[in-house]
Each structure stands twice: as structure tokens, then as C-alpha cells.
């Protein structure tokens, strides 16, 4: 049997099994997209419930306790289970192709990372059906999270711990891939910006997730195993949690927004037909933002009482981040300046991103002024600010990226017409929802309030905000319809569908062969595909003769390792309860599954397989493309 044919036609169950066991970065990307998209819808529904509750004063659409669960799950889901995996989807789908690699460095670990994230997310969301979701906010400040009754916070701590392992593995994997697996000629300063931002974001993951892991372990031990890290009565300290959380939490913002910057840095040159303006300063700014991102966490804690010296230092450090971010904004504008702009849907998102994100950026600088932040902090001004950054930056990036990379991932093109409807609804809704919230905050509305009383001048603004949210929801519904119609029609659009593709991922046949590049391409400069096209060529110059390609085997082990931790988490959570003697055995069985699967992986030789040169040549003659 040909080694290529083995990857062809399958039945429905065969497809399911393929995705459960796949180690191919392109299929893992689709898994991330599906799972992240699902959690994005869940988080969106939670957002709608928040806005319905706050549409009018004294509303009782949801109860006070339930409201706190909804806001907690909205924040946690959107950050950890929607934004991160959706970005991971694009990193997986695009980055290896952009640098001319056959896969990521550790395909097995890549699959393991996905399944850990997935089981962590499922575990967290099961809290809705098993006695109540976490209710201490996505920041889960220690005094409140220790006081919280039920198992909500346990679901939060264990679920994030499991999915956090996955994210950490993903980050390390991308780092190793970018350092080691670039195609011949792909020097660091020829890497596309999306690869660069993936690289820096992965480095941030490497340094930012360990503090979260430590903090979560302390929380787990405090709540389930009787320790007292945060328990003041036992000599603990709750402020430590705030530091741990924000030493992770602030870089996390950049982990999310830098890849979104990367996506826009790909979209602008493509549709302006002009190379990125100031490439090297863009790279420099990206690295600098990543570095400074670790120096500013305490600006989330200006009102904690750290004293004027700490507050002043962190205020000035925070302001400094505005400089590299400003460099980026001006470089993007200068990229389209003098270009030939085609307004496709991805370009519309990129264009809308600039003013939206600038709005979020400038309020960020305003908050850096510590004494002013004493007023802004924990008010709706903050809610407006971070939604301008996250929706105006990251979500616009994800939506633009989804339209831009859809042909690469699925070989089809989302409808431009429906895409434009989504764009208008979403953008109008976004500004309608969040712009007014700046003023609500300034007028004295604290954040995370379940309801507000009449006669405080807050009613009109909240109603406008809720109406805006409905527009955003409509936009997303149109997007879903668009996706279903597009996939149903399944019109394959072929290679380089945007016609102005500049980087390596557009040089590869569509649908992308499972081994990616038959011959690794020779990279001759920035925007390698564009360089070849300008010289009248249609293909990249190969850097090697056709030869055997070494491929990894599929494996079910990542799924099993993750499942084991998922099972163990239930044991850990329930062991402190009265009369639940089964809990400790469940914890042990879960760990046995995980470590057993790891042992199996370690002792069983799996050398993968080779695609033979003859098959590759046969395929080329047969013209499978």
C-alpha cells in the first residue's frame, strides 16, 4: 500500500478516530478552532445574560449568586478557553507553513497540549451541572475564593491547572519549532510577523504560566488539602495571590494580543500589496512589549495599598509600554499609506482594528496614572478599557484571521457578503456596548455589580450598552450561518486564493498535503513567495531534492493522558467532602491512567514511518492537485 494513500478516504467513525489520534498540526488547528469556537459561543451566551440583567435598574433576570457565577465563567471562558485556543488554532495552522516546516517540533506533545486544554475546559464547564460554577471573578482573589462555598472554585483551580499544562506545552513546542525548524534561508529577520509574535507570545507563556501554576496549586492545597498559604487566620497572606495572579495575568494580555497583532501584520501587507513598513522596528517593538509586559503587573494593584513608591514606579513603567505600541500603530498606517488597498473582509477587520485598539490603548495609558486609576480601578471604566483591548484587538484579530486563513485551513472561502454583514453588526455593536461604559464608570458604577439602583444616573447608559451587545450577538449568528453555508457548498478555491499572498503558507498547494512541503523551499528574503512571484515564478525554489519524508504515527495516548488527569481532578475535588470515600480511589485511578499512559509511551518504540520518494513522485505525475 502506498504510504500516501493511507491518509486518504475514511468513513465517519474513521474521521472521528483520525481526529482523536491525530498529531498533524493542521488537524490539531481545526480541533483548537472547533473547541475554541464552542467555548466562544458559551462565553458569548454568558455575556448576553450579563447585559440582559443589567439592561434596566433593579432587574431580577438572574439571581445575585448566579450573576457572580456568570461573570466569573464569562471572563475565564473567554480568556482561557476561547481566545487562547483560537489563537493556538491559527498558530498551529499557519506558523509551521510560514517557516517552511513539515510539522511542529513535537507533534505528540502538540496533540497532548490540545487534549489537556480540552479536558480542562470541559471540567471547568461541568461545574454548571455539578453544584454551581466558580463565583469569585476570573481573578479569583484569595480571600473571596477561600470563602466561597461549594465546589465552584475547585472546578476553577483544577480546570485551569489542567488546561494550563496544555498551554505551557503548546508554548514550549512553538518555541522549539521556530528556533529549530525554519526552512533553509529563513533567518530570524526574514520570519513573517505572525511567526515573530507567536515566538514572543510563546516565550511569554513559558515565563508567565508557571506563576499561575504555582498560585493555582496553592489555592488547590488551601481549599482541598488544608494548607494555609492565603488563609490569614493561619498566617497566610492574600496579597500574594494578587501578585501571582497578575505576574501571570498581565503578560497573558500580551500573550493574547501579540498574535492578534501578528495576524494584522499579515493582513495589511497582503491587501495593500505593500511590504510591512519598518519590519525591523516592528520586530523590535514586539520583543520590547513582551519584555516590558513582565514589569508592570502591579498596575492592577494600585489600590491594594502597596505604597506610593511602588505605585509611582509601576505607573511610569506602564506608561513606557505605550511607546512600542505606538510604533506598531504608526507602522501599520504607513504600511497601507501609498499601498493599493483592497477591502476584503479580513482587511475590513484590520482597518477597524486600528482606531478601536487605539481607543483601548489610550485608556490604558490614562489608567497608568496611578492617582487617576484610584478612580478608574474596579469601575466600569476598566470594563470598557479591557473590552476595547480584548474585543477591539484580539477578537477583531480572530475574526479577521478566521476569514483570512479559512482557505488555508479548509480550502474554501467564507462568503464576503455575509462576512461584511457580520463585520458591520459586530463593529457597531462593539462600540455601542463598550464606549458608553467608560462614562458609566466615571459616573461611579463599580464593576461586577449584579444590579444597580434607580436614581443614580446609570440607567440610560446601561440600556444602550445592552442594545449594543445584541448587535454583536447578531453578527456572530450571521458568521455561524456563513460558516455552515460555506462548508455545505464546499467550493475549493485552490492555492493563494487572495491572489496577493506574500508568505510561504500561500505557496503551498491547497488543500495542504499532510506532509506540508514535498521539498523544503529556499527562502531568499522577507515575503519569500512575493519575491518569487515578482520574478515571474509560480513556485518556490526547492532547497533539497525530493526524498523520503519522515512522519510521526498517530497516537491515542495524548487523549488518555489528559483523560486521566480529568478523572483525577474529580477525586481531588470531592475527597474533602463528608461520606465520599470513593474520592481518593478515583484520584489514584486517574493518576494511574495518566502515568500508565506516559509509561506506555516511554517504553514502546514508535519511530513513525516514511513517505517514500517514489510515492511522492508518483503523486506528482498523477496530478492529485
Amino acid at each position, binding site marked *: 500500500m502506498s504510504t500516501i494513500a493511507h491518509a486518504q478516504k475514511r468513513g465517519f467513525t474513521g474521521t472521528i478516530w483520525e481526529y482523536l489520534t491525530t498529531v498533524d498540526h493542521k488537524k490539531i488547528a481545526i480541533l483548537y478552532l472547533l473547541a475554541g469556537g464552542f467555548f466562544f459561543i458559551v462565553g458569548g451566551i454568558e455575556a448576553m445574560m450579563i447585559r440582559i440583567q443589567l439592561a434596566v435598574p433593579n432587574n431580577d433576570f438572574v439571581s445575585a449568586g448566579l450573576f457572580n457565577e456568570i461573570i466569573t465563567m464569562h471572563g475565564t471562558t473567554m480568556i482561557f478557553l476561547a481566545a487562547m485556543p483560537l489563537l493556538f488554532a491559527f498558530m498551529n495552522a499557519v506558523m509551521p507553513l510560514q517557516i517552511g516546516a513539515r510539522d511542529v517540533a513535537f507533534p505528540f506533545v502538540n496533540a497532548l497540549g490540545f487534549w489537556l486544554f480540552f479536558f480542562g475546559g470541559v471540567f471547568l464547564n461541568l461545574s454548571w451541572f455539578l453544584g454551581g460554577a466558580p463565583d469569585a471573578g476570573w481573578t479569583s482573589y484569595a480571600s*473571596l475564593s477561600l470563602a466561597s462555598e461549594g465546589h465552584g472554585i475547585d472546578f476553577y483551580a483544577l480546570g485551569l491547572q489542567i488546561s494550563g499544562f496544555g498551554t505551557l506545552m503548546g508554548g514550549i513546542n512553538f518555541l522549539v519549532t521556530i528556533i529549530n525548524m525554519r526552512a533553509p534561508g529563513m533567518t530570524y529577520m526574514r520570519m513573517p510577523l505572525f511567526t515573530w509574535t507567536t515566538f514572543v507570545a510563546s516565550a511569554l507563556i513559558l515565563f508567565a504560566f508557571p506563576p499561575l501554576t504555582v498560585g493555582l496549586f496553592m489555592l488547590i492545597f488551601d481549599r482541598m488539602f488544608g494548607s494555609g498559604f492565603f488563609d490569614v487566620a493561619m498566617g497566610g497572606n492574600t496579597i500574594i495571590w494578587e501578585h501571582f495572579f497578575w505576574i501571570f495575568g498581565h503578560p497573558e494580555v500580551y500573550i493574547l494580543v501579540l498574535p492578534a497583532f501578528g495576524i494584522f501584520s499579515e493582513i495589511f501587507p497582503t491587501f495593500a500589496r505593500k511590504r510591512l513598513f519598518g519590519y525591523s522596528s516592528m520586530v523590535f517593538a514586539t520583543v520590547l512589549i513582551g519584555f516590558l509586559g513582565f514589569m508592570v503587573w502591579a498596575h492592577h494593584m494600585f489600590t491594594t495599598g502597596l505604597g506610593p513608591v511602588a505605585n509611582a514606579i509601576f505607573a511610569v513603567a506602564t506608561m513606557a509600554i505605550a511607546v512600542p505600541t505606538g510604533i506598531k500603530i504608526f507602522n501599520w498606517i504607513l504600511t497601507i499609506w501609498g499601498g493599493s488597498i483592497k477591502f476584503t473582509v479580513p482587511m475590513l477587520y484590520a482597518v477597524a482594528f486600528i482606531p478601536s485598539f487605539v481607543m483601548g490603548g489610550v485608556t490604558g495609558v490614562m489608567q497608568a496614572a496611578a492617582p487617576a486609576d484610584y478612580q478608574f480601578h474596579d469601575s466600569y471604566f476598566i470594563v470598557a478599557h479591557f473590552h476595547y483591548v480584548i474585543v477591539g484587538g484580539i477578537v477583531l484579530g480572530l475574526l479577521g484571521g478566521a476569514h483570512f486563513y479559512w482557505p488555508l485551513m479548509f480550502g474554501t472561502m467564507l462568503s464576503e457578503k455575509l462576512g461584511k454583514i457580520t463585520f458591520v453588526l459586530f463593529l457597531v455593536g462593539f462600540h455601542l456596548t463598550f464606549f458608553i461604559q467608560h462614562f458609566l464608570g466615571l459616573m461611579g458604577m463599580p464593576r461586577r455589580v449584579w444590579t444597580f439602583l434607580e436614581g443614580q444616573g446609570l440607567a440610560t447608559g446601561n440600556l444602550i450598552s445592552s442594545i449594543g451587545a445584541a448587535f454583536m450577538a447578531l453578527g456572530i449568528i450571521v458568521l455561524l450561518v456563513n460558516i455552515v453555508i460555506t462548508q455545505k457548498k464546499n467550493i475549493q478555491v485552490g492555492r493563494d486564493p487572495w491572489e496577493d499572498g506574500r508568505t510561504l503558507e500561500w505557496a503551498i498547494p491547497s488543500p495542504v498535503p499532510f506532509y506540508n512541503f514535498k521539498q523544503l523551499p529556499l527562502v531568499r528574503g522577507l515575503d519569500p513567495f512575493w519575491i518569487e512571484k515578482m520574478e515571474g515564478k509560480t513556485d518556490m525554489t526547492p532547497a533539497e531534492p525530493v526524498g523520503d519524508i519522515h512522519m510521526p504515527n498517530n497516537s491515542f495516548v495524548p487523549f488518555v493522558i489528559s483523560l486521566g488527569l480529568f478523572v483525577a481532578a474529580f477525586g481531588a475535588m470531592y475527597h474533602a467532602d463528608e461520606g465520599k470515600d470513593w474520592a481518593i480511589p478515583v484520584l489514584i485511578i486517574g493518576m494511574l491512567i495518566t502515568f500508565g499512559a506516559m509509561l506506555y509511551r516511554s517504553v514502546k518504540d514508535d519511530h513513525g514511518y516514511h513517505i517514500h520518494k517514489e510515492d511522492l513522485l508518483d503523486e506528482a505525475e498523477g496530478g492529485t492537485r
Partner: protein
Amino acid sequence: MKKKLANWRLFTFMGLMALLLSGCGEPFLSTLTPAGEAGQTAYDLMMLSTWIMVGVVIVVSILFAVAVLKFRRKKGDTTIPKQVEGSHVLEIVWTIIPIILLIILAIPTVLATFDLADTKAMDKKNEDGTTDAMVVNVRANLYWWEFEYPNQKIITSQDLVVPTDQKVYFNVKASDVKHSFWIPAAGGKIDTNVENVNQIWLEFDNEKAAEADNLFYGKCAELCGPSHALMDFKVHALPKSEFDQWVTAMQAIDAKAAEAAPEDPAAAEGQEIFNQKCLSCHAVTTADARPEAARTAPNLAGFADRERIAGVLEHNEEELKNWLADPGQYKPGNKMTGTYGELSDQELDQLAAYLMSLKVE
């Protein structure tokens, strides 16, 4: 499409102007109507940063709009634009200018940070342990606030009373979970931590206080549980002379005054019920000698003169009875629910009559 975008920007701007013209929120609540020096400092900094940032937004928007409008691709245009690598001059310009703007913002920021943190006056103790400064100890509890005046030896709750035209210093902490003490109109917030005391000062101008009918709203600004949204308090900012009168009247509510039976027979019955069911948590004298940990419920001395029941309900007998019958319905998760058994309608009437007799004379 570009038209639409330009329209949308205009629309946002118009919305902003409309908001500015329609006012800045309510004077008793809004940070945009600062009531005193601390609020004014924050407000000035907010305005400075806002105008710098509005300038930035305008410059970026103009550049952006020109780029988007001018460089559209015409139908069928296949020309390839010049591939510009970058420009050192431009890049230096847009690095230096932001740095200058940030320095302009950073200097007043640092100065104000130290100014607002200056609570040295609290530490200057007289021989008897009092201070010349006006000090209030704030203790935040699950959904209620305690205000202790160490110099005046008064404890009260829910309604903070402060003199105008002088700095008021606060020691703040929490007794259960973290809260945050915020009087938006008077100035910035400070967290009430569970492990340490934070200090802050605020000031209320006499004139500004008069504009707000001498009454400001206070809020809890840190998520603390189901009733976080309902953890409001009120601030009476009174001229010094009236404040002194209030202090004298409050000090007069001593044990003797509190034990005297009210004239109204219903209220007297209510006092009996209160003493049996409520007194173990709620004190009715302002000089409560019990340690903090024992003061597990709001001090009710002078209850009849408060602004709201439980911080949120209208202050009348009807709402008081509703509250006593089922506190959990109005403040979910509060610590009072279920601690005193069922009350009959008659008992409710009597208790309400008693509580409404607790006046500051």
C-alpha cells in the same frame, strides 16, 4: 465602505460630545464632579491624560482616514505599489513624541501619587493617644460598613459622618473578605485588606457638599459575594459646627440612655424582643467596648436618622419590616438571615417601632 467608516467615527465623536453636554452623572456619585481636594487631584490628572490622549486619537485618526480613503484600489488596477522598507526619520519621530507626551503625564502622576499617600498627620499622637487629625477607622464586613471615630470614641455604621473643609484620614480594613472603600465623588478608592490596615485621606469642600445636599454615596468596589452590588453606604459631609453637634449627640447615647424604656408601649415591647434576639450582635450604644471580632453586626445607635435600611432600601417602617422578615430576599448571602428565628407580624411592628425610636437627639 470607507464612507461608512468615516461616518462611524463621526458618530462616535458626536456621541462623546452629547454625553459631555448632557452632564457628568449625579453630583453625589460621579467622579466627574469632585467634591474636594483628593477628588480634584484625581480629576485633574484624568483630564490631563484625557486631553493628551484625545490629541493622540485625533492625530492617528486623521492619518488613518487619509490612508484608507486615498489609497483604495481602483477596479482592475493591477499595479504594484513601491515596496517601502521603512523610514528612520519617521520612526524616530513617532518614538520621541510619545516619550515627551508620557513625560508630561508622568511628572504630575508621580507627584500626585505621593501627595495622596501622605497620611503622616495620622501618626502624630498626643499624650492621651488621640490625634489632632480627623481620623475614622473603617471596617468592611460582608455587606455592611463600620465607622469608628477613635478620637471621639464613637462607633457607628452604614452612615459615615464627616466634617467639611478639612482632611479626613481613614484607616481601612476588612474583617471577612476583601472589599474596597470608594466614595467616587470625594476621591479614589482603597482596598480594605484582610491582613493589613490601609490609609487614605479625603476632603469634602463645604460648597461642593452643599451642591450635593451634604450627602454622598459610597460603594464597595471589590467583588465580595452575592450582595457586592448592594454594599452601599452614605456619607454626610457637615460643616464643622454641625459635625461637632452630631458628635456630642452621639456620645450622649450611652448605656444609660440606651437602657431607658421608650415611652411608646409598642416600642418598649420591641426593645424586649431586641434585647433577646438582636442585642448579642447589634449594639445600640455608640461606645461599644466589645472587641472588633465580637462586633459582628452594624451598630444601630441613631438608627432612626439613617438614610437607607441595610444601605439600599427606602428608610421607612414598611421597608424595615420587610427587611426584618426576610433579609436574604433583599441582600442575598448576608449574615443576618436565619440568626433570630421567625418573627410574628406583631413582633415585627414592635421591633420596627423600637428601632425607629433610636434617634440622635
